[in-house]
């Protein structure tokens, strides 16, 4: 039974995802889109945490900043070209990632965690305290970007269903990209850095360079998620670069199981569904989330992926 399930389960899930808009109502489709966007973000963080061993508590800086770039570039009353906006956001974040990375990667372990947290907060204060980007109120994206190909095919990003499919497609692309990176010679060096950075340096690798490139890639993938989030909500605010968003994503990565492509998918979906359930129970739902996190961290260090049902048959 397990073997049959294992073979067809991925296809079934895929089918379910593709057909979701047919049987789900507006609220569920929007919620599903939210989850997909967070999976993109969590997957980008997993590249750092799970595959390279770099625990960042400031990754939301790239997620949120991407949306801000879109908001800043978007004209007040007309749509931007989607591809231009998308590219501009991703590349801007790439530059930010290079600057932040160059600084924080000079540190290790605890220092690295603290530095990433602090730099992320620096960006928060920059956005919150100054008027350059709307201050504490944030900015609106009055008109969502216009996504059309050669004038004959057009997606309306304000439409919940269109947005869902765009997000689904981008998520697949992101997962494929991450998978390829991991399986590449570059990915092999990342693994070496994660498992034993000292020896990896001693056999001739400039590990700082590799970590920096990985950091920039991860920041740009996070930017994909942030761009989509901004498009979905139509608004950006400083909280989107805050450490609570970073910490939340870290939970998703660990819950699912770091170091696997599937982990963030499982972890994000599970955590967001569980939280939605908690929110219906009590207004102090974060208490329950906190308990879940502590329990998972203490007793399930390998995450959901480590559970027996996901183990491959011997």
């Amino acid at each position, binding site marked *: 039974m397990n073997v049959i399930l294992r073979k067809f389960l991925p296809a079934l899930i895929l089918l379910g995802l593709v057909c979701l808009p047919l049987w789900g109502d507006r609220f569920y489709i929007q919620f599903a889109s939210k989850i997909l966007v967070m999976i993109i973000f969590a997957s980008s963080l997993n590249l750092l*945490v799970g595959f390279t061993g770099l*625990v960042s*508590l400031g990754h939301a800086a790239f997620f949120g900043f991407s949306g801000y770039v879109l908001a800043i570039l978007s004209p007040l009353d007309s749509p931007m070209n989607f591809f231009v906006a998308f590219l501009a956001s991703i590349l801007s974040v790439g530059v930010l990632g290079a600057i932040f990375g160059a*600084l*924080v990667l*000079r*540190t*290790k*372990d*605890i*220092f690295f*965690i*603290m*530095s990433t*947290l*602090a*730099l992320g*907060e*620096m960006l928060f*204060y*920059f956005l*919150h*305290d*100054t*008027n350059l980007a709307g201050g504490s109120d944030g900015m609106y994206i009055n008109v969502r970007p216009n996504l059309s190909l050669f004038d004959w095919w057009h997606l309306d990003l304000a439409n919940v269903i269109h947005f869902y499919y765009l997000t689904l497609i981008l998520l697949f692309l992101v997962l494929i990209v991450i998978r390829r990176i991991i399986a590449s010679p570059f990915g092999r060096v990342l693994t070496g850095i994660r498992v034993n950075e000292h020896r990896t340096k001693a056999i001739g690798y400039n590990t700082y360079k590799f970590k920096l490139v990985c950091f920039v890639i991860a920041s740009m993938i996070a930017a994909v998620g942030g761009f989509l989030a901004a498009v979905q909500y139509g608004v950006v605010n400083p909280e989107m670069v805050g*450490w609570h968003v970073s*910490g939340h994503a*870290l*939970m998703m990565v*660990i819950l699912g199981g*770091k170091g696997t492509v599937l982990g963030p998918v499982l972890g994000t979906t599970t955590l967001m569904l569980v939280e939605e359930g908690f929110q219906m129970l009590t207004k*102090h739902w*974060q*208490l329950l*989330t*906190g*308990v*879940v*996190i*502590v329990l*998972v*961290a*203490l007793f399930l*260090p390998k995450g959901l992926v480590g559970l027996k049902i996901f183990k491959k048959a011997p």
Partner: protein
Amino acid sequence: MDAVTIFIQAMNGIQYGLLLFLVASGLTLIFGIMGVINIAHGSFYMIGAYLAWSFMGWIGNFWLGLFVGVVVAFVLGLVLEFLFIRFLYDKDHLQQVLVTYGLILIFSELRSVIWGDDVHSVAIPALLDGSIQLTENLAYPVYRIWLSSVCIVIAILMFLGIQHTRLGMMIRAGESDREMTKALGINIGLVYRFIFALGVSLAAFSGMISAPISSVFPGMGGQVLIVSFVVVVIGGLGSIKGAMVAALLVGLIDTFGKVTTLHIFGVNILPEMAGMSIFALMALILMFRPQGIFGREH
């Protein structure tokens, strides 16, 4: 700015720095000795402030409230170490970050359940109410002077303790090596429990004594945590001396940043971007001396 204003701002900056030192030293001690990164440390500062508000309100006396609050915080520290922290000693940093992040959420919500989400204030005790006249126009609050003095006394006690006790020897060596500590004839479980409770008490105490001059509000834990991290990164991990120097630097820069005016090419740098000034300093340290001022080479 005239000389008196500069003096007052400097006093304020030092006072803020000294409070930060109490919090940051707890953080760096816990990490230096036990190898545990506790990001819920800021929550203890918040808990201290709320405890102060409660106890001082019930008891009606600042000093008694303070005393009870510190005792409660110390016991809380002992309990926490026993329930959660002692499982983290040989785990990797990611796991430690996760467990303590969960604790942040739990503490935040418990605070919300017990005390609500309002902002509160605590009255300055009568004994310390009032100001010292500096010039004809400017006076400096007695309470702030008292606050700084208390922090300095605690700092001195800490330095003395580190220089003259076996425990202090451990701290100076920067060892979180349990084998070596056992060899010194110390019961390690109890030592760790004590140190953790001490760290918690320091942070809570800091929150309590700062309550009369800053407000008691939900986000104060997160705020002080971030700044503590900046202090530790600048000062160097595991170094009490570094924590003091960095805390004072951070306190002064933050305070002066908020009252200075700086415009470059038409862009308002200060005081608008004052919140970023301490991070700018941290970025500089990361660029030129990533191990911190007093830290060891990585």
